[in-house]
C-alpha cells in the first residue's frame, strides 16, 4: 500500500511543474489557494485511480477531499477501510 510519502512526492512534482518550489506543509491548501489548477486536480484524480484504486464516479467527487496532502491521505485511508 502506498502512503503519505508517495502522495507528497506526487504533489510536489505537480507544484514543480507549475514553477512552484515554495514551502509545502501537509495541511496546506492546494486547489482553493490557487497553487494548483483544475488540470492538476485531474492529475491527482488519475494518480488516485491508478495507485489507490479510487473510483470517484462511485464515491462522488469533491475538491475539498483532494485539497491538501492530509485530505488526500485521509481519502485513501477511508477508501481502503471501506
Amino acid at each position, binding site marked *: 500500500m502506498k502512503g503519505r510519502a508517495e502522495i507528497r512526492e506526487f504533489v510536489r512534482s505537480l507544484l514543480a511543474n507549475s514553477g512552484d518550489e515554495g514551502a509545502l506543509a501537509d495541511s496546506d491548501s492546494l486547489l*482553493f489557494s490557487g497553487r494548483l489548477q*483544475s*488540470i492538476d486536480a485531474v492529475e491527482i484524480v488519475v494518480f488516485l*485511480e491508478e495507485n489507490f484504486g479510487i473510483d*470517484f464516479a462511485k464515491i462522488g467527487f*469533491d475538491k*475539498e477531499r483532494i*485539497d491538501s496532502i492530509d485530505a488526500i491521505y485521509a481519502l485513501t485511508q477511508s477508501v481502503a477501510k471501506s
Partner: protein
Amino acid sequence: MVTPSGPSSAKANRLAEFRLIPRIETFPVVVSFAQTSLGKVVLLAAFGLGMRYFLPDLPSVLTLMLPLALITFLPEYRRFVLAISPIAIVAMQSANDLLTLGLTLAVIALGIFLYWCAMRWPQSRFGQRPVASLLIGFTALILLARAATPRSWPHLILWGLVGALASYLWFIAYALSDRNSKPSEELTLELAAFRPLWGSTNTPFPKGAAYLRRIEAKNPEQLAVFQLKGLKLLVWAILLAVLQGLWYRFFHGYLRIPMPDQALTMSVQGTPAAWHMRWACQILAYFELIFTFSIFGHRIIAVCRMAGFNALRNTYRPLSATTIMEFFNRFYYYFKELLVDFFFYPAFLRYWKRHKRIRMIFATFAAAFFGNSLYHLMRDWQIVRDGGLWKAIASYQVLFFYNAFLAAGLCVSQLRKRGPKPRGFVRAHLLPAVGVGFFYCILNVFDSDERMYPLVEHLKYLAGLFFIHF
C-alpha cells in the same frame, strides 16, 4: 533570485516581482491600522470613493457600502448581512414590479428547497444527479413556456419564471453541488452566495458557499488583510479602466482602427478595411477583451474581499500564459471553473477511463463545447422566447464554431507532449505567449454576441486575413 536558467530568467523574475501598486497588505503597520476603528473608517471611505468611479450615483455607492460597513464593524454578523443584502436589494430594485419580485423570491425559495431535497434524499435520482436534474428541469420549463399561448397570463408568468431562474441557475447549481461538502447545513452562506452582494454575471463569483466557507476571514487580522487586498484590486481596476479609455481614444478614435464588429460588417458589405487595419483590429480586440474582463472581474472580487473573503482574481496575468489552456484558466477563471465543475469532471470521472487521450478529449469537449454552448443558450433565453428553439440554435452557429475551435485548441494544449522547458525569457515566455495570443486573435473572429452574420461570413473574414478570398 538567479535560477540555473541564467540572467534572462533573473530578469523575468524581477519583472514578475514588480508591483505597480505596493503590497500594503504585507506592511504590519498598515494591517494594524486597518484593524482600528479609524482605520476601518478610512478603508471604507477609500473603497466607497473608488466604487464611485464605477457606480452611477451616490445612492448606489451607499447601498453597497452600508452592508460592507456592517460587515467591517460587526464581522460576527457577516453571513447574516450577506444573506439578507441581496434579497433587500432585489426588493428595492423590483418594488414597482411585483411580478418580477415575486418570481425572483420564488426562485430563491426554489433554490433553497432543491438544496434541502438533495441533502434530505441523497440516494434518490435527484440526489445523485442534482445539477443535471436542474438543467433538464430548466429546459423543460423553457419548452413549457414556449408552448403557452402568447400574451396570456401563463405565458407571462412562465417566461418571467424562466428569466428569474436563468439568472439564478448556476448559483443554485453550486448550492446543489455543495451538498457533499462539510458542514453543509449552514443555510445563511448558501443564501449569501445567490447573486451575492458583490455582484456577478450569470457565472457565480466566486463559486458557491463551500468555496466561500474556505476563504472566509477567521479573525480581525485576516479581515484587514483581505480588505486591503480588495482596496488594491479596486485601484487596479480603476487604473485599467482609465487606461482602457485612453486606449480606445487612441486606437479607435485617433488612428481610426475599426472595432471587430465594424470590420466584419465592412467585409460583409464588400468594402473591407485595409489588410493591416483588419489585423490591427484583431490584435487590439485580443487586448480589449482582457481589459474588459479584468476590469469587471477585479471590481467584483474587490467587493468580495472587502466583505471578508479572500477570493482569487477572475483574471490573473493572462498575458503571461504560455499555453492555450493556461490562458483559458487565467482569463475568465470563474467561468472556466463552472465549466470544469459541472461538465469536465462529471464527464472525465465517468467515461472512457481506459483510454487516456479519448478521456481527456471527451471531457474537454463536454466542458468547452457542450457546457459552454448550453450556458449561452440558457443565458439568452429571450432568443428562444422570441424566435423559437430551432431558430435560436441556428442563430448560434457562430458560437458553436467558436466553442468547437476553442475545445480543439484546449485539447491540443493539454495533450501536446512537452520537451524540456526552453531557457531564456524569449524562448520560455515571450514566444509561447505570442503563440497563445495568435490563437486567441484568430478565435476572436468568431466571438460575436450580436449574431448578425452567418458563420460563412466570419470564415470569409478570417480567410481574408490570410489573403484567401472566396
